[in-house]
Protein backbone atom coordinates (compact mmCIF):
# COMPACT_ATOMS: atom_id res chain seq x y z
CA UNK A 1 0.00 0.00 0.00
CA UNK A 2 1.27 3.48 -0.70
CA UNK A 3 -0.57 5.14 2.15
CA UNK A 4 2.71 5.89 3.82
CA UNK A 5 4.10 9.35 3.35
CA UNK A 6 7.59 8.22 4.24
CA UNK A 7 10.05 8.82 1.48
CA UNK A 8 10.73 5.70 -0.55
CA UNK A 9 13.30 7.09 -2.90
CA UNK A 10 15.29 4.27 -4.44
CA UNK A 11 18.95 4.26 -5.20
CA UNK A 12 20.07 4.51 -8.78
CA UNK A 13 20.40 0.76 -9.41
CA UNK A 14 17.03 -0.83 -10.08
CA UNK A 15 16.76 -4.09 -8.27
CA UNK A 16 13.80 -6.44 -8.59
CA UNK A 17 13.49 -7.58 -5.00
CA UNK A 18 10.21 -9.34 -5.60
CA UNK A 19 11.64 -11.71 -8.24
CA UNK A 20 14.82 -12.24 -6.21
CA UNK A 21 12.89 -12.96 -3.03
CA UNK A 22 10.26 -15.20 -4.62
CA UNK A 23 12.90 -17.34 -6.30
CA UNK A 24 14.83 -17.71 -3.05
CA UNK A 25 11.69 -18.65 -1.12
CA UNK A 26 11.14 -21.63 -3.42
CA UNK A 27 14.72 -22.76 -2.96
CA UNK A 28 14.71 -22.20 0.79
CA UNK A 29 11.44 -24.09 1.20
CA UNK A 30 12.86 -27.04 -0.73
CA UNK A 31 15.95 -27.13 1.49
CA UNK A 32 13.84 -26.90 4.62
CA UNK A 33 11.61 -29.70 3.39
CA UNK A 34 14.69 -31.89 2.95
CA UNK A 35 16.16 -30.84 6.27
CA UNK A 36 13.29 -32.18 8.36
CA UNK A 37 12.20 -35.58 7.03
CA UNK A 38 9.50 -37.39 8.99
CA UNK A 39 11.02 -40.20 11.02
CA UNK A 40 10.18 -42.12 14.16
CA UNK A 41 8.69 -40.76 16.44
CA UNK A 42 6.62 -39.13 13.70
CA UNK A 43 4.58 -36.74 15.80
CA UNK A 44 7.54 -34.60 16.85
CA UNK A 45 8.70 -34.25 13.23
CA UNK A 46 5.18 -33.34 12.17
CA UNK A 47 5.05 -30.65 14.86
CA UNK A 48 8.46 -29.31 13.75
CA UNK A 49 7.43 -29.30 10.10
CA UNK A 50 4.11 -27.65 10.85
CA UNK A 51 5.81 -24.51 12.06
CA UNK A 52 8.85 -24.45 9.81
CA UNK A 53 7.26 -25.44 6.49
CA UNK A 54 4.59 -22.78 6.60
CA UNK A 55 3.70 -21.88 3.03
CA UNK A 56 2.87 -18.34 4.06
CA UNK A 57 6.32 -17.72 5.55
CA UNK A 58 8.15 -14.85 3.93
CA UNK A 59 11.60 -16.18 4.83
CA UNK A 60 12.89 -12.66 5.32
CA UNK A 61 15.81 -13.63 7.61
CA UNK A 62 17.32 -16.24 5.26
CA UNK A 63 16.83 -13.98 2.26
CA UNK A 64 18.65 -11.15 4.00
CA UNK A 65 21.38 -13.56 5.05
CA UNK A 66 21.88 -14.62 1.47
CA UNK A 67 21.83 -11.03 0.27
CA UNK A 68 24.67 -10.27 2.70
CA UNK A 69 26.65 -13.21 1.41
CA UNK A 70 26.17 -11.95 -2.13
CA UNK A 71 27.90 -8.81 -1.07
CA UNK A 72 31.34 -10.31 -1.45
CA UNK A 73 31.01 -13.84 -2.76
CA UNK A 74 28.17 -15.27 -4.76
CA UNK A 75 27.39 -18.43 -2.85
CA UNK A 76 23.95 -19.62 -1.97
CA UNK A 77 24.60 -21.32 1.29
CA UNK A 78 21.07 -22.20 2.02
CA UNK A 79 21.69 -24.34 5.04
CA UNK A 80 22.37 -21.21 7.02
CA UNK A 81 18.96 -19.97 6.09
CA UNK A 82 17.37 -23.14 7.32
CA UNK A 83 18.89 -22.58 10.70
CA UNK A 84 17.67 -19.04 10.86
CA UNK A 85 14.15 -20.18 10.10
CA UNK A 86 14.44 -22.82 12.79
CA UNK A 87 15.66 -20.25 15.25
CA UNK A 88 12.93 -17.85 14.38
CA UNK A 89 10.43 -20.57 15.08
CA UNK A 90 11.91 -21.13 18.50
CA UNK A 91 11.24 -17.49 19.21
CA UNK A 92 7.71 -17.74 17.82
CA UNK A 93 7.05 -20.74 19.96
CA UNK A 94 8.08 -19.03 23.15
CA UNK A 95 6.11 -15.96 22.26
CA UNK A 96 2.98 -17.94 21.43
CA UNK A 97 2.91 -19.97 24.54
CA UNK A 98 4.08 -17.55 27.12
CA UNK A 99 2.16 -14.49 26.14
CA UNK A 100 -1.09 -16.35 26.08
CA UNK A 101 -0.69 -18.42 29.17
CA UNK A 102 -0.83 -21.71 27.28
CA UNK A 103 -4.51 -21.57 26.56
CA UNK A 104 -5.66 -18.98 24.09
CA UNK A 105 -5.91 -20.04 20.52
CA UNK A 106 -3.61 -17.69 18.79
CA UNK A 107 -2.98 -17.62 15.11
CA UNK A 108 0.47 -17.19 13.67
CA UNK A 109 0.29 -15.98 10.10
CA UNK A 110 -3.40 -16.79 10.04
CA UNK A 111 -2.98 -20.43 11.10
CA UNK A 112 -3.62 -22.01 14.48
CA UNK A 113 -0.40 -22.02 16.49
CA UNK A 114 1.61 -25.18 16.94
CA UNK A 115 0.49 -25.93 20.48
CA UNK A 116 -3.22 -25.79 19.69
CA UNK A 117 -2.73 -28.64 17.22
CA UNK A 118 0.04 -30.73 18.78
CA UNK A 119 -0.38 -29.84 22.44
CA UNK A 120 1.79 -27.60 24.60
CA UNK A 121 4.16 -30.43 25.55
CA UNK A 122 4.82 -31.37 21.92
CA UNK A 123 5.20 -27.72 20.90
CA UNK A 124 7.85 -27.18 23.58
CA UNK A 125 9.70 -30.30 22.51
CA UNK A 126 9.48 -29.31 18.84
CA UNK A 127 11.15 -26.02 19.74
CA UNK A 128 13.81 -27.77 21.81
CA UNK A 129 14.53 -30.01 18.81
CA UNK A 130 14.58 -27.30 16.14
CA UNK A 131 17.29 -25.23 17.72
CA UNK A 132 19.93 -27.98 17.79
CA UNK A 133 18.74 -29.15 14.37
CA UNK A 134 19.73 -25.73 13.05
CA UNK A 135 23.27 -26.14 14.38
CA UNK A 136 23.49 -29.73 13.25
CA UNK A 137 22.46 -28.59 9.82
CA UNK A 138 25.18 -25.96 9.64
CA UNK A 139 28.01 -28.14 10.87
CA UNK A 140 27.15 -31.21 8.82
CA UNK A 141 26.24 -29.49 5.54
CA UNK A 142 28.78 -26.70 5.25
CA UNK A 143 31.80 -28.01 3.37
CA UNK A 144 34.92 -26.90 5.28
CA UNK A 145 36.80 -26.45 2.00
CA UNK A 146 34.30 -23.66 1.16
CA UNK A 147 33.73 -22.18 4.61
CA UNK A 148 36.57 -22.68 7.12
CA UNK A 149 35.60 -23.98 10.55
CA UNK A 150 36.57 -20.80 12.40
CA UNK A 151 33.89 -18.93 10.44
CA UNK A 152 31.32 -21.63 11.19
CA UNK A 153 32.08 -21.26 14.89
CA UNK A 154 31.57 -17.51 14.69
CA UNK A 155 28.22 -18.07 12.99
CA UNK A 156 27.18 -20.49 15.73
CA UNK A 157 28.18 -18.03 18.42
CA UNK A 158 26.29 -15.24 16.64
CA UNK A 159 23.06 -17.28 16.35
CA UNK A 160 23.19 -18.37 19.94
CA UNK A 161 23.89 -14.87 21.18
CA UNK A 162 21.10 -13.37 19.08
CA UNK A 163 18.41 -15.67 20.47
CA UNK A 164 19.89 -15.94 23.97
CA UNK A 165 19.24 -14.34 27.34
CA UNK A 166 20.67 -10.97 26.32
CA UNK A 167 19.09 -11.09 22.85
CA UNK A 168 15.65 -12.19 21.72
CA UNK A 169 14.91 -14.13 24.89
CA UNK A 170 15.61 -10.92 26.83
CA UNK A 171 13.19 -9.00 24.60
CA UNK A 172 10.57 -11.66 25.06
CA UNK A 173 11.08 -11.69 28.80
CA UNK A 174 10.89 -7.91 29.28
CA UNK A 175 7.85 -7.82 27.00
CA UNK A 176 6.04 -10.33 29.20
CA UNK A 177 7.10 -8.82 32.49
CA UNK A 178 6.10 -5.30 31.59
CA UNK A 179 2.78 -6.20 30.04
CA UNK A 180 0.90 -3.37 31.69
CA UNK A 181 3.62 -0.82 31.38
CA UNK A 182 4.54 1.81 33.92
CA UNK A 183 7.22 4.34 34.69
CA UNK A 184 9.95 3.37 32.31
CA UNK A 185 7.60 2.52 29.50
CA UNK A 186 9.64 4.19 26.79
CA UNK A 187 12.81 2.39 27.68
CA UNK A 188 10.89 -0.87 27.82
CA UNK A 189 9.34 -0.43 24.38
CA UNK A 190 12.64 0.48 22.79
CA UNK A 191 14.40 -2.44 24.46
CA UNK A 192 11.70 -4.88 23.39
CA UNK A 193 11.64 -3.62 19.80
CA UNK A 194 15.38 -3.73 19.51
CA UNK A 195 15.67 -7.21 20.97
CA UNK A 196 12.62 -8.87 19.48
CA UNK A 197 12.79 -7.38 16.02
CA UNK A 198 16.27 -5.93 15.59
CA UNK A 199 18.21 -9.00 16.68
CA UNK A 200 16.90 -11.40 14.04
CA UNK A 201 17.64 -9.07 11.14
CA UNK A 202 21.00 -8.18 12.70
CA UNK A 203 21.88 -11.86 13.06
CA UNK A 204 20.87 -12.60 9.46
CA UNK A 205 22.98 -9.80 8.02
CA UNK A 206 25.96 -10.55 10.26
CA UNK A 207 25.94 -14.30 9.55
CA UNK A 208 25.94 -13.68 5.82
CA UNK A 209 28.96 -11.45 6.28
CA UNK A 210 30.74 -13.91 8.56
CA UNK A 211 30.28 -16.77 6.11
CA UNK A 212 31.66 -14.67 3.31
CA UNK A 213 34.71 -13.81 5.39
CA UNK A 214 33.93 -10.14 5.98
CA UNK A 215 36.43 -8.14 8.02
CA UNK A 216 35.49 -7.28 11.63
CA UNK A 217 34.80 -3.68 10.71
CA UNK A 218 32.46 -4.80 7.91
CA UNK A 219 30.68 -7.19 10.24
CA UNK A 220 30.15 -4.32 12.66
CA UNK A 221 28.56 -2.28 9.88
CA UNK A 222 26.32 -5.16 8.77
CA UNK A 223 25.25 -5.42 12.40
CA UNK A 224 24.15 -1.77 12.42
CA UNK A 225 22.41 -2.22 9.09
CA UNK A 226 20.51 -5.34 10.16
CA UNK A 227 19.43 -3.86 13.47
CA UNK A 228 18.16 -0.68 11.81
CA UNK A 229 16.19 -2.63 9.18
CA UNK A 230 14.66 -4.98 11.77
CA UNK A 231 13.43 -2.18 14.01
CA UNK A 232 12.40 -0.12 10.98
CA UNK A 233 10.20 -2.96 9.78
CA UNK A 234 8.43 -3.07 13.13
CA UNK A 235 8.00 0.70 13.46
CA UNK A 236 6.44 0.77 9.98
CA UNK A 237 4.19 -2.13 11.01
CA UNK A 238 3.03 -0.04 13.98
CA UNK A 239 2.37 2.92 11.69
CA UNK A 240 0.40 0.75 9.27
CA UNK A 241 -1.57 -0.78 12.10
CA UNK A 242 -2.51 2.60 13.50
CA UNK A 243 -3.68 3.73 10.04
CA UNK A 244 -5.75 0.57 9.60
CA UNK A 245 -7.37 1.08 12.97
CA UNK A 246 -8.02 4.70 12.12
CA UNK A 247 -5.94 6.79 14.44
CA UNK A 248 -3.70 6.25 17.38
CA UNK A 249 -6.00 4.10 19.49
CA UNK A 250 -3.99 1.01 18.67
CA UNK A 251 -4.52 -2.06 20.80
CA UNK A 252 -0.90 -3.16 20.88
CA UNK A 253 0.59 -1.72 24.09
CA UNK A 254 4.12 -2.03 22.74
CA UNK A 255 3.31 0.00 19.68
CA UNK A 256 5.75 2.77 18.89
CA UNK A 257 2.83 4.88 17.66
CA UNK A 258 0.88 4.43 20.86
CA UNK A 259 3.87 5.48 22.88
CA UNK A 260 5.20 8.42 20.88
CA UNK A 261 2.41 9.34 18.50
CA UNK A 262 2.24 8.95 14.76
CA UNK A 263 4.48 11.86 13.90
CA UNK A 264 7.39 10.75 16.07
CA UNK A 265 7.00 7.18 14.78
CA UNK A 266 7.33 8.42 11.22
CA UNK A 267 10.39 10.45 12.17
CA UNK A 268 11.93 7.40 13.83
CA UNK A 269 11.29 5.32 10.72
CA UNK A 270 13.00 7.96 8.63
CA UNK A 271 16.02 7.99 10.98
CA UNK A 272 16.32 4.22 10.81
CA UNK A 273 16.02 4.22 7.03
CA UNK A 274 18.75 6.86 6.82
CA UNK A 275 20.97 4.90 9.21
CA UNK A 276 20.61 1.69 7.17
CA UNK A 277 21.29 3.44 3.89
CA UNK A 278 24.28 5.30 5.29
CA UNK A 279 25.87 1.98 6.19
CA UNK A 280 25.23 0.64 2.69
CA UNK A 281 26.65 3.73 1.04
CA UNK A 282 29.95 2.78 2.64
CA UNK A 283 29.80 -0.65 1.04
CA UNK A 284 29.05 0.74 -2.42
CA UNK A 285 32.47 2.40 -2.51
CA UNK A 286 34.14 -0.97 -2.06
CA UNK A 287 31.84 -3.47 -3.76
CA UNK A 288 29.93 -1.44 -6.32
CA UNK A 289 26.21 -0.73 -6.53
CA UNK A 290 25.11 -4.00 -8.09
CA UNK A 291 26.22 -6.15 -5.18
CA UNK A 292 24.74 -3.86 -2.57
CA UNK A 293 21.43 -3.47 -4.44
CA UNK A 294 19.60 -6.37 -2.72
CA UNK A 295 20.42 -4.91 0.70
CA UNK A 296 19.20 -1.46 -0.35
CA UNK A 297 15.97 -2.96 -1.60
CA UNK A 298 15.27 -4.47 1.84
CA UNK A 299 15.31 -1.00 3.34
CA UNK A 300 12.84 0.31 0.80
CA UNK A 301 10.64 -2.74 1.15
CA UNK A 302 10.53 -2.33 4.93
CA UNK A 303 9.13 1.17 4.35
CA UNK A 304 6.86 0.91 1.33
CA UNK A 305 5.78 -2.79 1.34
CA UNK A 306 5.27 -2.33 -2.37
CA UNK A 307 4.39 -5.98 -3.04
CA UNK A 308 3.17 -9.09 -1.29
CA UNK A 309 6.01 -11.56 -0.89
CA UNK A 310 5.44 -14.96 -2.48
CA UNK A 311 2.43 -13.69 -4.40
CA UNK A 312 2.74 -14.96 -7.97
Amino acid at each position, binding site marked *: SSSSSLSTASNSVQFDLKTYWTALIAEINKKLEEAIPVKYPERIYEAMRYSVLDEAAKRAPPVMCIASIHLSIILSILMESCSICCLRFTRLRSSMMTSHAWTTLRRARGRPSNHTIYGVDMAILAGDAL*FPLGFQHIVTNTPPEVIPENRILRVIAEFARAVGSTGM*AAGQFVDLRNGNGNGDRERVVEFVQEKKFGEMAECSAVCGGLLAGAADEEVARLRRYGRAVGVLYQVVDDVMESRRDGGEGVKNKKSFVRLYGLERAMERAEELREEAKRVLDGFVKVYGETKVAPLYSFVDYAVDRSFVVGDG
Partner: protein
Amino acid sequence: ENQQVFKETLFQFEDYMVHKAKRVNEALDEAVPLRHPLKIHEAMRYSLLAGGKRVRPMLCIASCELVGGDESVALPVACAIEMIHTMSLIHDDLPCMDDDDYRRGKLTNHKAFGEETALLAGDALLFLAFEHVATRTAGVSPERVVRAVAEMSAAVGSEGLVAGQVLDVASEGQEVDLRELEYIHVHKTSKLLEAAVVCGAIMGGGETVDVERMHRLIVSSDVTKSSEELGKTAGKDLKTKKATYPRLMGIEKAREFADILVAEAKGELSHFDSSKAAPLHGLADYIAYRQN
Protein backbone atom coordinates in the same frame (compact mmCIF):
# COMPACT_ATOMS: atom_id res chain seq x y z
CA GLU B 1 43.49 -56.91 51.74
CA ASN B 2 41.35 -56.63 48.61
CA GLN B 3 38.84 -54.70 50.59
CA GLN B 4 41.57 -52.30 51.67
CA VAL B 5 42.56 -51.64 48.02
CA PHE B 6 38.91 -51.21 47.12
CA LYS B 7 38.44 -48.70 49.90
CA GLU B 8 41.48 -46.70 48.84
CA THR B 9 40.31 -46.58 45.22
CA LEU B 10 36.91 -45.54 46.35
CA PHE B 11 38.39 -42.81 48.47
CA GLN B 12 40.51 -41.48 45.60
CA PHE B 13 37.52 -41.55 43.32
CA GLU B 14 35.49 -39.51 45.78
CA ASP B 15 38.39 -37.10 46.02
CA TYR B 16 38.44 -36.84 42.25
CA MET B 17 34.68 -36.22 42.13
CA VAL B 18 34.84 -33.51 44.79
CA HIS B 19 37.78 -31.78 43.12
CA LYS B 20 36.26 -31.82 39.63
CA ALA B 21 32.80 -30.80 40.83
CA LYS B 22 34.38 -27.74 42.43
CA ARG B 23 36.09 -26.72 39.18
CA VAL B 24 32.89 -27.29 37.22
CA ASN B 25 30.77 -25.32 39.68
CA GLU B 26 33.17 -22.38 39.54
CA ALA B 27 33.14 -22.44 35.75
CA LEU B 28 29.33 -22.62 35.62
CA ASP B 29 29.07 -19.73 38.06
CA GLU B 30 31.27 -17.61 35.79
CA ALA B 31 29.44 -18.72 32.63
CA VAL B 32 26.13 -17.11 33.62
CA PRO B 33 26.82 -13.67 35.09
CA LEU B 34 23.87 -11.65 36.38
CA ARG B 35 23.04 -9.31 33.55
CA HIS B 36 20.01 -7.39 32.36
CA PRO B 37 17.25 -8.63 32.48
CA LEU B 38 18.22 -9.87 35.94
CA LYS B 39 15.28 -12.17 36.58
CA ILE B 40 15.88 -14.47 33.63
CA HIS B 41 19.55 -14.82 34.55
CA GLU B 42 18.58 -15.51 38.15
CA ALA B 43 16.25 -18.24 36.92
CA MET B 44 19.01 -19.74 34.77
CA ARG B 45 21.44 -19.69 37.69
CA TYR B 46 18.85 -21.06 40.12
CA SER B 47 18.63 -24.38 38.30
CA LEU B 48 22.14 -24.53 36.86
CA LEU B 49 23.83 -23.94 40.22
CA ALA B 50 21.40 -26.05 42.21
CA GLY B 51 24.10 -28.51 43.19
CA GLY B 52 23.68 -31.37 40.75
CA LYS B 53 26.23 -34.16 40.88
CA ARG B 54 27.86 -32.94 37.67
CA VAL B 55 28.15 -36.47 36.32
CA ARG B 56 28.12 -35.31 32.69
CA PRO B 57 30.87 -32.67 33.04
CA MET B 58 32.94 -35.18 34.97
CA LEU B 59 32.58 -37.80 32.26
CA CYS B 60 33.63 -35.17 29.74
CA ILE B 61 36.71 -34.09 31.67
CA ALA B 62 37.69 -37.66 32.54
CA SER B 63 37.58 -38.78 28.90
CA CYS B 64 39.57 -35.71 27.85
CA GLU B 65 42.25 -36.61 30.38
CA LEU B 66 42.06 -40.24 29.31
CA VAL B 67 43.30 -39.37 25.81
CA GLY B 68 45.98 -37.05 27.19
CA GLY B 69 44.23 -33.67 27.13
CA ASP B 70 44.22 -31.10 29.90
CA GLU B 71 41.10 -30.46 31.97
CA SER B 72 40.99 -26.85 30.75
CA VAL B 73 40.35 -27.74 27.09
CA ALA B 74 37.27 -29.79 28.01
CA LEU B 75 35.84 -27.46 30.64
CA PRO B 76 33.75 -25.25 28.28
CA VAL B 77 32.07 -28.19 26.55
CA ALA B 78 31.63 -29.92 29.91
CA CYS B 79 29.74 -26.86 31.18
CA ALA B 80 27.74 -26.65 27.96
CA ILE B 81 26.51 -30.21 28.35
CA GLU B 82 25.47 -29.48 31.93
CA MET B 83 23.51 -26.44 30.65
CA ILE B 84 21.69 -28.66 28.14
CA HIS B 85 20.97 -31.20 30.87
CA THR B 86 19.60 -28.44 33.11
CA MET B 87 17.40 -27.13 30.28
CA SER B 88 15.87 -30.57 29.85
CA LEU B 89 15.17 -30.80 33.59
CA ILE B 90 13.50 -27.37 33.69
CA HIS B 91 11.28 -28.17 30.70
CA ASP B 92 10.60 -31.68 31.98
CA ASP B 93 9.24 -30.32 35.25
CA LEU B 94 6.76 -27.92 33.62
CA PRO B 95 3.06 -28.50 34.34
CA CYS B 96 2.40 -29.53 30.74
CA MET B 97 5.09 -32.22 31.01
CA ASP B 98 5.82 -34.06 34.28
CA ASP B 99 4.35 -31.35 36.49
CA ASP B 100 6.81 -31.59 39.36
CA ASP B 101 7.03 -29.18 42.29
CA TYR B 102 10.41 -30.21 43.65
CA ARG B 103 13.75 -31.24 42.23
CA ARG B 104 16.88 -31.97 44.25
CA GLY B 105 14.93 -30.92 47.30
CA LYS B 106 14.29 -27.40 45.96
CA LEU B 107 11.26 -25.87 44.31
CA THR B 108 11.32 -26.48 40.57
CA ASN B 109 12.15 -23.53 38.35
CA HIS B 110 8.57 -22.71 37.36
CA LYS B 111 7.45 -22.94 41.00
CA ALA B 112 10.10 -20.40 41.95
CA PHE B 113 9.94 -18.08 38.92
CA GLY B 114 6.70 -18.80 37.06
CA GLU B 115 6.08 -20.88 33.95
CA GLU B 116 6.90 -18.24 31.38
CA THR B 117 10.25 -17.42 32.92
CA ALA B 118 11.08 -21.11 33.38
CA LEU B 119 10.38 -21.83 29.72
CA LEU B 120 12.56 -18.92 28.60
CA ALA B 121 15.31 -19.72 31.12
CA GLY B 122 15.45 -23.28 29.74
CA ASP B 123 15.61 -21.99 26.16
CA ALA B 124 18.30 -19.50 27.12
CA LEU B 125 20.44 -22.22 28.74
CA LEU B 126 20.23 -24.26 25.53
CA PHE B 127 21.33 -21.24 23.47
CA LEU B 128 24.08 -20.35 25.91
CA ALA B 129 25.46 -23.89 25.76
CA PHE B 130 26.31 -23.49 22.08
CA GLU B 131 27.57 -19.93 22.45
CA HIS B 132 29.75 -21.02 25.37
CA VAL B 133 31.46 -23.83 23.46
CA ALA B 134 31.96 -21.72 20.35
CA THR B 135 33.43 -18.71 22.17
CA ARG B 136 35.13 -20.07 25.29
CA THR B 137 37.02 -23.10 24.04
CA ALA B 138 40.72 -22.31 23.82
CA GLY B 139 43.68 -24.36 22.70
CA VAL B 140 41.62 -26.66 20.43
CA SER B 141 41.49 -26.50 16.63
CA PRO B 142 38.25 -25.02 15.17
CA GLU B 143 37.77 -28.31 13.32
CA ARG B 144 37.52 -30.20 16.61
CA VAL B 145 35.23 -27.62 18.19
CA VAL B 146 32.88 -27.93 15.21
CA ARG B 147 32.86 -31.71 15.64
CA ALA B 148 31.94 -31.27 19.29
CA VAL B 149 29.07 -28.94 18.32
CA ALA B 150 27.81 -31.62 15.92
CA GLU B 151 27.87 -34.24 18.71
CA MET B 152 26.10 -31.93 21.16
CA SER B 153 23.35 -30.95 18.75
CA ALA B 154 22.74 -34.55 17.68
CA ALA B 155 22.46 -35.59 21.32
CA VAL B 156 19.83 -33.03 22.25
CA GLY B 157 17.62 -32.87 19.13
CA SER B 158 14.85 -35.00 17.70
CA GLU B 159 17.20 -37.95 17.31
CA GLY B 160 18.39 -37.61 20.88
CA LEU B 161 17.06 -36.24 24.14
CA VAL B 162 13.86 -34.85 22.63
CA ALA B 163 12.96 -38.17 20.97
CA GLY B 164 13.20 -39.84 24.37
CA GLN B 165 11.02 -37.18 25.98
CA VAL B 166 8.39 -37.49 23.25
CA LEU B 167 8.07 -41.23 23.83
CA ASP B 168 8.22 -40.76 27.58
CA VAL B 169 5.35 -38.27 27.52
CA ALA B 170 3.37 -40.48 25.15
CA SER B 171 3.88 -43.60 27.26
CA GLU B 172 2.70 -42.15 30.55
CA GLY B 173 -0.16 -44.19 31.98
CA GLN B 174 0.33 -46.88 29.32
CA GLU B 175 1.97 -50.28 29.32
CA VAL B 176 5.45 -50.08 27.84
CA ASP B 177 7.50 -53.08 26.73
CA LEU B 178 11.24 -53.49 27.21
CA ARG B 179 12.06 -52.40 23.68
CA GLU B 180 10.19 -49.12 24.10
CA LEU B 181 11.70 -48.56 27.52
CA GLU B 182 15.16 -49.10 26.05
CA TYR B 183 14.39 -46.51 23.36
CA ILE B 184 13.23 -43.94 25.91
CA HIS B 185 16.20 -44.55 28.13
CA VAL B 186 18.86 -44.52 25.44
CA HIS B 187 17.53 -41.25 24.05
CA LYS B 188 16.54 -39.46 27.21
CA THR B 189 19.64 -40.29 29.24
CA SER B 190 22.37 -42.11 27.38
CA LYS B 191 22.70 -39.82 24.36
CA LEU B 192 23.82 -36.86 26.45
CA LEU B 193 26.14 -39.00 28.58
CA GLU B 194 27.59 -40.32 25.34
CA ALA B 195 28.03 -36.79 23.98
CA ALA B 196 29.86 -35.89 27.20
CA VAL B 197 32.52 -38.61 26.88
CA VAL B 198 32.78 -38.24 23.11
CA CYS B 199 33.21 -34.45 23.25
CA GLY B 200 35.79 -34.86 26.01
CA ALA B 201 37.84 -37.18 23.80
CA ILE B 202 37.49 -34.86 20.80
CA MET B 203 38.64 -31.80 22.76
CA GLY B 204 41.45 -33.76 24.40
CA GLY B 205 42.93 -34.52 20.99
CA GLY B 206 41.85 -38.18 20.85
CA GLU B 207 42.33 -40.27 17.73
CA THR B 208 39.29 -41.45 15.76
CA VAL B 209 39.58 -44.88 17.35
CA ASP B 210 39.48 -43.33 20.85
CA VAL B 211 36.40 -41.30 19.95
CA GLU B 212 34.70 -44.46 18.64
CA ARG B 213 35.48 -46.26 21.90
CA MET B 214 33.91 -43.38 23.80
CA HIS B 215 30.80 -43.74 21.64
CA ARG B 216 30.53 -47.37 22.75
CA LEU B 217 31.34 -46.66 26.38
CA ILE B 218 27.92 -45.45 27.40
CA VAL B 219 25.74 -48.29 26.25
CA SER B 220 23.21 -47.57 28.87
CA SER B 221 23.29 -46.26 32.34
CA ASP B 222 21.61 -45.92 35.68
CA VAL B 223 19.48 -48.93 34.94
CA THR B 224 18.28 -49.26 38.46
CA LYS B 225 17.41 -45.65 38.98
CA SER B 226 14.34 -44.95 40.96
CA SER B 227 12.41 -41.74 41.23
CA GLU B 228 13.66 -41.09 44.76
CA GLU B 229 17.27 -41.09 43.61
CA LEU B 230 16.52 -38.41 41.08
CA GLY B 231 15.26 -36.20 43.86
CA LYS B 232 11.81 -36.17 42.34
CA THR B 233 8.53 -36.44 44.15
CA ALA B 234 8.74 -39.88 45.69
CA GLY B 235 6.70 -42.61 44.09
CA LYS B 236 5.43 -40.45 41.26
CA ASP B 237 6.78 -42.68 38.53
CA LEU B 238 5.02 -45.69 39.99
CA LYS B 239 1.77 -43.84 40.49
CA THR B 240 1.70 -42.65 36.91
CA LYS B 241 2.81 -46.10 35.73
CA LYS B 242 5.91 -44.62 34.23
CA ALA B 243 8.16 -47.35 32.97
CA THR B 244 11.37 -48.19 34.82
CA TYR B 245 13.65 -51.20 34.45
CA PRO B 246 12.99 -52.54 37.94
CA ARG B 247 9.27 -52.37 37.28
CA LEU B 248 9.55 -54.32 34.04
CA MET B 249 12.34 -56.73 34.94
CA GLY B 250 12.26 -56.92 38.69
CA ILE B 251 15.08 -55.58 40.86
CA GLU B 252 17.26 -58.69 40.55
CA LYS B 253 17.16 -58.90 36.75
CA ALA B 254 17.66 -55.16 36.43
CA ARG B 255 20.80 -55.38 38.56
CA GLU B 256 22.14 -58.27 36.47
CA PHE B 257 21.47 -56.23 33.36
CA ALA B 258 23.39 -53.33 34.87
CA ASP B 259 26.33 -55.67 35.64
CA ILE B 260 26.50 -56.73 32.01
CA LEU B 261 26.45 -53.15 30.76
CA VAL B 262 29.08 -51.99 33.20
CA ALA B 263 31.32 -54.90 32.19
CA GLU B 264 30.91 -53.90 28.54
CA ALA B 265 31.79 -50.31 29.33
CA LYS B 266 34.89 -51.38 31.25
CA GLY B 267 35.87 -53.59 28.30
CA GLU B 268 36.16 -50.45 26.19
CA LEU B 269 38.32 -48.84 28.87
CA SER B 270 40.76 -51.77 28.96
CA HIS B 271 42.41 -50.36 25.82
CA PHE B 272 43.67 -47.34 27.72
CA ASP B 273 46.33 -46.73 30.34
CA SER B 274 44.74 -48.09 33.52
CA SER B 275 45.70 -45.19 35.78
CA LYS B 276 44.21 -42.69 33.33
CA ALA B 277 41.10 -44.82 32.93
CA ALA B 278 40.51 -45.06 36.70
CA PRO B 279 38.13 -42.07 36.92
CA LEU B 280 35.94 -43.46 34.14
CA HIS B 281 35.90 -46.89 35.86
CA GLY B 282 34.71 -45.14 38.98
CA LEU B 283 32.12 -43.12 37.10
CA ALA B 284 30.74 -46.24 35.39
CA ASP B 285 30.22 -47.88 38.78
CA TYR B 286 28.84 -44.69 40.21
CA ILE B 287 26.29 -44.24 37.43
CA ALA B 288 25.16 -47.86 37.50
CA TYR B 289 25.02 -48.46 41.24
CA ARG B 290 24.67 -45.05 42.81
CA GLN B 291 22.65 -44.87 45.94
CA ASN B 292 21.89 -41.80 47.95
